[in-house]
């Protein structure tokens, strides 16, 4: 099982060389549903993939199902409402828990030798454990909502969905590789679930940005420079899990406060035992059969500093 994780492709294109490095010939299945209405604007992408692209058009298929299956459309509306409600509750709990973590962090002595043995240091560990418990609660609840949606939306009984699933199997059956570009991760995960997409383990995958997030076990949303100001990093969903023990952060330099090691350190500690890996422009991470990242990956440490495995 080979997965190549790339940094954002807008300014530094690595997808072409990554695809060529697979030394395959034949069609490449592409899931760019995260582009939503722009899903069919694939001229540049197709060229970057040596014109081997076979678009699965999952966003178009989603809108087709919504149009043709009114029961599913009603269930989706209800699901979105419940999902938004859950996210709202998660953010409330997270905001309070994280403010507790930061408050305790400010009590830790500055001197490293004293810090390790301070009561505040131990208190922070416990406070972060509280945040992890909230993260776990959210993911459990989110999975429960997905299961409810599958039943209420008739996902396994809908003829329209079954038709699309069948056509998709035919479409990607002979593909020698899969590509998952970036885009809207919420939309991407919705269509992967709806059409029961699973990539055969023996088929290599190239993924970047939102696509890379979808390859991991846990997907985190983050933006320290959004219009509403810095918001706490929040878990969103479970991914396909081809890449293990990692939470990825595409566009890290553009979206994370890299000059705040205290905040970054808490982020890294919160997601232990997974590594927080930064995916900036030009990054190429070739993940082998063990699903683990190579040493060149830039990871955030518990001290908030960024290192590669080679630095250790």
């Amino acid at each position, binding site marked *: 099982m080979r997965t190549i994780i790339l940094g954002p492709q807008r300014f530094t294109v690595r997808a072409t060389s990554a695809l060529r490095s697979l030394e395959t010939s034949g069609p490449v299945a592409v899931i760019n549903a995260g582009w939503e*209405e722009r899903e069919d604007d694939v001229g540049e992408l197709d060229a970057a993939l040596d014109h081997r692209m076979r678009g699965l058009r999952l966003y178009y298929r989603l*809108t087709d199902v919504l149009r043709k299956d009114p029961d599913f459309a009603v269930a989706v509306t209800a699901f979105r409402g419940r999902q*938004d*409600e859950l996210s709202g509750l998660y953010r409330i709990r997270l905001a309070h828990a994280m403010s507790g973590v930061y408050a305790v962090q400010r009590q830790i002595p500055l001197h490293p030798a004293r810090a390790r043995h301070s009561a505040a240091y131990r208190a922070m560990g416990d406070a972060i454990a509280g945040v992890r418990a909230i993260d776990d609660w959210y993911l459990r609840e989110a999975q429960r909502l997905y299961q409810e949606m599958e039943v209420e939306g008739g996902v396994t009984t809908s003829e329209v969905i079954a038709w699309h699933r069948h056509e998709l199997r035919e479409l990607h059956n002979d593909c020698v590789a899969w590509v998952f570009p970036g885009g*809207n991760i919420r939309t991407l995960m919705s269509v992967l679930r709806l059409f029961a997409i699973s990539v055969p383990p023996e088929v290599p995958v190239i993924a970047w*940005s939102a696509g890379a997030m979808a390859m991991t076990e846990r997907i985190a949303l983050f933006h320290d420079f*959004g*219009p509403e100001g810095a918001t706490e990093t929040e878990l969103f969903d479970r991914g396909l899990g081809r890449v293990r023990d990692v939470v990825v952060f595409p566009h890290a330099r553009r979206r994370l406060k890299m000059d705040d090691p205290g905040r970054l350190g808490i982020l890294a500690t919160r997601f232990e035992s997974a590594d927080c890996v930064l995916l900036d422009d030009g990054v190429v991470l070739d993940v082998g059969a063990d699903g683990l990242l190579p040493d060149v990956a830039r990871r955030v440490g518990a001290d908030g500093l960024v290192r590669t495995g080679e630095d250790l």
Partner: protein
Amino acid sequence: MRGKLAINRLRERPDLSAEVVTQFVTKYASPIIEGQRATFLFRGEADEVFVRHRVVGLPDPLPMKRLTGTDLWAATVDLPAGSRVEYQLEVRRGEHYERFNDPLNQRVAHSPMGSSSVCAGQGYQVPDWTQPDPEARSGELVERHIKSKALRRDQRYLLYTPARFNTVLRYPLLIVHDGPEYVQFAAMKTVLDNLIHRLDIAPMIVAFVPPGDRLREYPNHAPHARFLARELLPELEAAYPLVEPPAGRCLMGSSFGGIASVSTAYRYPGVFGSLLIQSASLVFTDIGQDHGGGPYFDPVVKFVNKYRAKPTRFTDRMYMSCGIYEPLITPNRSMVSVFREAGITVKYEENRDGHNWDNWRDRLQAGLSWLYPGPQRYVYE
């Protein structure tokens, strides 16, 4: 050490001829912004010249002084970085007073009351998302009418639907007091198009509702509240795919429109999940009835006093903003803690501006993105 101001350098010149003054005003125009100082200029014959403004903390009228031997008048004030002030000039010639925009200043702001000159302090910039962006797809703005029993009239309003509006999706709803004014003077359609395009805010449906008799209907008026909650809202819910209430229902307004939003939500608790109020006329008294706002504020003060005596959680979330140069800053600051103690989640922002439409325009991104955030947090291209 601060350098000498341009006006003082001019004052010290031995050759202060009409030609030198002409060169000076041509070079600098008005006002001259030097660090955190603003110098207003006027050129012409007069007995007295004043800068007229509504900035709390600065004297109004602000007298200008004539440079000896010239027809140039000047006044210098402190202007903290990021400030934005609207003003006019007033000239007295004998018994005759005349007010007008600064002829040496091209920057003008518009409002229903007319236009004013704009003094933008160091660091202030008109946000780029308020300007038309050819990349942003345009939403649709159409005129609608509704027969209102509550208001006993045919009520006109403007309805905004976002670009790529799709009936299989669900949209939050925003109802805007002084709606056409927000479109005309706060560029709100352009702002919506741009912020939706940038993924800063969720695509939304917006009803821009104009007032009838504004001074009577906006300050805690039962028929107005009934019209919004029991007539307009059901009509929009029936016609458009809206997200679940109350989270997807927001009332918005500035000044008296702010008090109209608060009093409507108060009369129909739980119906509107959020409010966006700007420089709201939240005037109250702690003792007695002497509020100084005139008779139009009587129902406002009565309502706010009643609310302060028994605060309730009539909505979930509230974005409040106010300019620190306007008289309403103190009541707005005071009400933040009252709303919060009632259990309402409040985001409150102040800025160095006054009671005007450009101020309200400049805060739209912060308010709308907090209440109805766009998909940016989900998008990783």
